[in-house]
């Protein structure tokens, strides 16, 4: 115990990297750590689970429609109206949902932060022009945009990423710009300019690191939002097409059969809700962990 304490003192004295330090403080946050573990388990299940089951997500079994969840039948989560195994479908849907959520958010993060920080830092006419472009994109009706894309390029998953990504970076850009406007008034920005730093250097070294806390929290809010967005599109027949599925699509199917087979609604909902909670807790924990003043 004593030697561990000394060890941690030496660590503190050595001065840790931002990443390692943040990780140490994140570990102290129980809710965040539990969420991280849970999310890891869900991700693992979603990735390897479908391979371990004897069923697949598209085979129909008319002898076993609306089977309630049971160990005996091997349908752990039951089956749906055409006898497809819900266990495999839930995990398969999770693959799509998580992938859409993470990939799209990542894309919107990169575009949004770069765009917003540049616009905010440069200010003046450039800022005006860049933000008016965002306004114009905002004003495009989203559904119209998606339908147009589908008409031109047909339905595929990649398009879904592109469509959701194209709208979700706008929020990020606005939020980042707003924050940048206040950061750029900070004396250390002036000090950096005084030390001869150029514009790209200041944005990358001084603006973006200071945005980190805000951006991380926003990302953890965007991922669930995007997952919900995807389910909305799927519901309208513009997203994932059967027999492929996602959590959103499963829940939508479940609502119509709620009275006959409630597990079709309840089980995917639990997965979705738990995942969204996890992201929120992790975001909260990360925000605290990344604030250097808290250490």
């Amino acid at each position, binding site marked *: 115990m004593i030697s561990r304490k000394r060890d941690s003192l030496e660590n503190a004295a050595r001065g840790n990297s931002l990443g390692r330090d943040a990780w140490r403080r994140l570990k102290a946050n129980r809710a965040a750590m539990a969420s991280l573990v849970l999310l890891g388990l869900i991700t693992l299940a979603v990735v390897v689970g479908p391979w371990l089951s004897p069923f697949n997500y598209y085979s129909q079994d008319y002898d076993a429609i609306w089977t309630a969840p049971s160990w005996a039948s091997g349908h752990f989560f039951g089956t749906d109206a055409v006898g497809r195994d819900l266990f495999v479908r839930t995990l398969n849907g999770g693959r799509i949902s998580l992938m859409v959520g993470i990939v799209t958010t990542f894309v919107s993060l990169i575009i949004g932060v770069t765009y917003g920080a540049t616009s905010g830092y440069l200010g003046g006419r450039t800022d005006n022009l860049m933000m008016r472009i965002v306004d114009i994109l905002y004003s495009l009706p989203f559904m119209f945009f998606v339908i147009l894309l589908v008409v031109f390029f047909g339905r595929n998953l990649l398009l879904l990423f592109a469509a959701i990504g194209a709208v979700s970076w706008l929020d990020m850009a606005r939020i980042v710009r707003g924050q940048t406007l206040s950061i750029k008034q900070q004396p250390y920005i002036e000090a950096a300019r*005084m030390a*001869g730093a150029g514009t790209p250097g200041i944005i990358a070294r001084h603006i973006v690191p*200071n945005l980190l806390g805000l951006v991380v929290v926003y990302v953890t809010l965007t991922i669930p939002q995007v997952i919900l967005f995807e389910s909305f599109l799927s519901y309208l027949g513009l997203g994932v097409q059967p027999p492929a599925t996602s959590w959103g699509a499963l829940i939508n199917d479940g609502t119509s059969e709620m009275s006959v087979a409630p597990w079709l609604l309840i089980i995917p909902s639990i997965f979705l809700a738990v995942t969204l909670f996890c992201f929120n807790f992790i975001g909260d924990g990360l925000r605290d962990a990344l604030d250097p*003043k808290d250490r």
Partner: protein
Amino acid sequence: MSRPLLEVRNLKIDFETHDAVVDAVHALDFTLERGEALGIVGESGSGKSQTVLGLIGLLAPNAKISGTATLTGSGKQGDIELLSAKPRILRKVRGARIAMIFQDPMTALNPHLKISTQMIEVLRAHRGMGRREAMQAAIDMLEAVRIPEAARRIKYYPHQFSGGMRQRVMIAMALSCEPEILIADEPTTALDVTVQAEILDLIDELRARTHTALILITHDLGVIAGQCSRALVMRRGDLVEHGPIEQIFRAPEAQYTRDLLAAIPRLEG
């Protein structure tokens, strides 16, 4: 060595706002010799800070500046006309030949970056040092400003230092590239009185070592008296008085200077 290091002629700074033009500085002339310490005194809004910001091209975008400010070349480099220089050239001057210490050390360091990162960056940019070499130079600099255990503390974040220590870090950063001119904009205003003297002595000592000229901006005549050989007194953008420090204190010409001196509280009795 006959020519001054910095020669400012007819410096004017205006700010265009929506409904008026505010003239912050009008027709300012002054020179700065190598290694000299020049004080600029004045009340708030007298244009003292804007003057130096104007010299290095860091005024707000709505500012209009005219006149000339010539930085005499050193070695192979020719003279640089600061007010009309291209941003690329000015960037090389800032930090390398003209460095600045800001008023509030609590906010002038980026809270998200370690001291080492911030110091090394400047050294690498201006002196073309490698990472390792820059790290060593930064540690040496911190030792020079008497930060104990510099090699360890360099990896700290700004909030882990006290105000006085942060100002010393700022000084170390500013002087790390051995600039010819150090601009100190109210360097001690945000600090305790006991720390103030320490900081001023430190600036003096380091400056003597590197033969750096100093422009000290302050509203505190006492600070000027201890540090500078010459001083400018400014009021509302005008140069009120300009002369050796003894003259300003013993035989001030302008009424405003006399008022400033009279404003220093004394214990009577």
